[in-house]
């Protein structure tokens, strides 16, 4: 996984609350492998393109100042709904490394960490202020530093944010989480032995026995 430390990039505001992951990537694309060249076009596909594949000019990602955006500033409960990790993959395929919102869908939030995207939760009024600033100055950049846990707005305003320590460590190091956990193998084995005694009923009888 690509580590995340620091980023200064164009940020794009998405004002709609409760943007679900079906909207982020429609279900019919979930069968596609991430390696297909058109993967990036699946992001927000049905609100970003018309039926014949032309860009909808009213959709913000199609507007010139936001084309190189790598930071998404969203509204409440962005990424709610389906667990599809493809929502994060599609954002990553378009260069996004960061989502800032007042709240995120829980599974989407976790999926971000697993793919080198930093989820930043800030108070609703701070996020609304950021979005307003980005509308007023299309193409403005935000600076985000994970080490110091700060977002710097175009007007120089700084917002500190909380991030869970585990996710922060994984993002800073870019470590393979499964590799990390396999380092706990002895502890897992020990737990399994204890669990097998204390909750023997929790292992289903083998099928057909």
């Amino acid at each position, binding site marked *: 996984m690509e580590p995340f430390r620091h980023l200064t990039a164009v940020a794009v505001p998405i004002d709609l609350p409760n943007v679900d992951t079906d909207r982020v990537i429609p279900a019919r694309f979930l069968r596609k492998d991430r390696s297909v060249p058109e993967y990036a076009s699946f992001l927000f596909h049905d609100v970003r393109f018309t039926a014949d594949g032309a860009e909808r000019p009213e959709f913000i990602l199609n507007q010139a100042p936001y084309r190189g955006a790598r930071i998404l500033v969203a509204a409440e409960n962005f990424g*709610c709904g389906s667990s599809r990790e493809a929502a994060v993959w599609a954002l990553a395929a378009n260069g996004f490394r960061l989502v800032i919102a007042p709240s995120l869908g829980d599974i989407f939030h976790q999926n971000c960490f697993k793919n080198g995207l930093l989820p930043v939760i800030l108070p609703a009024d701070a996020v609304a202020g950021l979005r307003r600033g980005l509308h007023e100055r299309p193409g403005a950049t935000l600076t985000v530093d994970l080490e110091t846990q700060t977002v710097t707005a175009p007007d120089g305003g700084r917002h500190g944010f909380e991030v869970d320590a585990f996710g922060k460590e994984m993002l800073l190091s870019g470590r393979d989480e499964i590799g990390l956990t396999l380092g*706990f193998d002895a502890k897992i084995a020990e737990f399994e032995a204890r669990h097998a005694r204390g909750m023997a009923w929790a*292992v289903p*009888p083998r099928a057909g026995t």
Partner: protein
Amino acid sequence: MSGTMFEKIWARHVVAEGPGGHVLLYVDRHLLHEGTTAAFGRLARSGRRVRRPDLSFATADHYLLTSPGSATSDAETRGMVEALERHTADQGILYFGVGDPRRGIVHVIGPEQGLTVPGITLVCGDSHTATHGAFGALAFGIGSSEVEHVLATQTLWQKKPSTMRISVDGRLGPGVDAKDLILAVIATIGAGGGVRHAIEYAGSTIRAMSMDERMTVCNMSIEAGARAGMIAPDETTFAYVEGRPLAPRGDAWRAALEEWKALPSDPGAVFDREVRLTASEIAPTVTWGTSPQDALPITARVPDPMAVADPGRRESMARALAYMGLAPGTPLGDVAVNRVFIGSCTNSRLDDLRAAARVVKGLRAVVPAWIVPGSGLVKRAAEAEGLDRIFLDAGFEWREAGCSMCVGMNGETAAAGERVASTSNRNFEGRQGKGARTHLMSPAMAAAAAVTGKLTDVRTLGP
């Protein structure tokens, strides 16, 4: 010590402590479906094996067609199902595959097979995994990377969520059921109201419910933002589980029962948030917008965005109404539908089919209407009591088990602009097909819509 049921289960499954309050949590059951096949591929490429194939179980549901005779629509989806078959065979994982009557929607067959029991942790690469919490299990949906992590380690790094108790007391009125209750809950706390919370549903209304009804309630926890929703196990739970093929037996059953009886939250248990609803105030409910929180009694009118003070909310309501093709002030009971879908992990169990059959008996569907049972065994059980005849006589399609029109990825979709009365769980834009318009409701309400061709208060159809 007084603890919540959630805390009791959590504490039993902590393998190790990590940084930032994260713990390595042990997983007792891992359910898999063909949509999560990619995780097996990545696992194989990294040279890793499945740690506990005996705790992993798979089926095919998301991509299968539910029309008789053809399981997949194309080579791509056939490839996904075949890959799951291959990986599970290679790893020694029990797979309920095409042609097996036990195959069905993963959240229907887990409980049906006795895999879902109280007191365990259960995960699945699907957001509706909270369904299994109806048994007093800690069950939650995970992403594809987490699926791979569980396959390799049988654990997950988790941060403890906050707890919320939603208490519902009293009797539901005639024509009102578990679906109306959970839609009312979501409308009350909002689509993001449960974010970072594990919900426990409690109160006399919940206690009086069958397991099928409890599963409907827990299933939609994610539509309120909560990954987990759970209900304390009781005699109803034990009676459901006992004797299921993969449930504990003999001494294991007796030991389990003893532990399960101690699982419910203690009387003094403190929840981070408490919400209360009164059952008698819940009406048959339908959604009018594009979020499950956009729910109102069927007797209400389409709301007017101009009457809303908050500009953000006003704009998103206006957008939802434009997508749904609805004008403010229209009585919901006047909205004509083009199709009806009764199925999904929310509402495809025997109780659901019975409720729908009671409404349609002796009547005719006036729009295309599908019944998609949740599993091959649900289908058989329904046929054994003649429900299929009731539906077929009424002009419904009686189909094979699967996710079908809930999920928009298997080719079974509604056309752009079509309005669907649906018992599924999401009315998002495009969920049932690009441009398709979804109204969520209970099986009885969907059945009523099928026989009248419009959203209908099931209470007006008479017995």
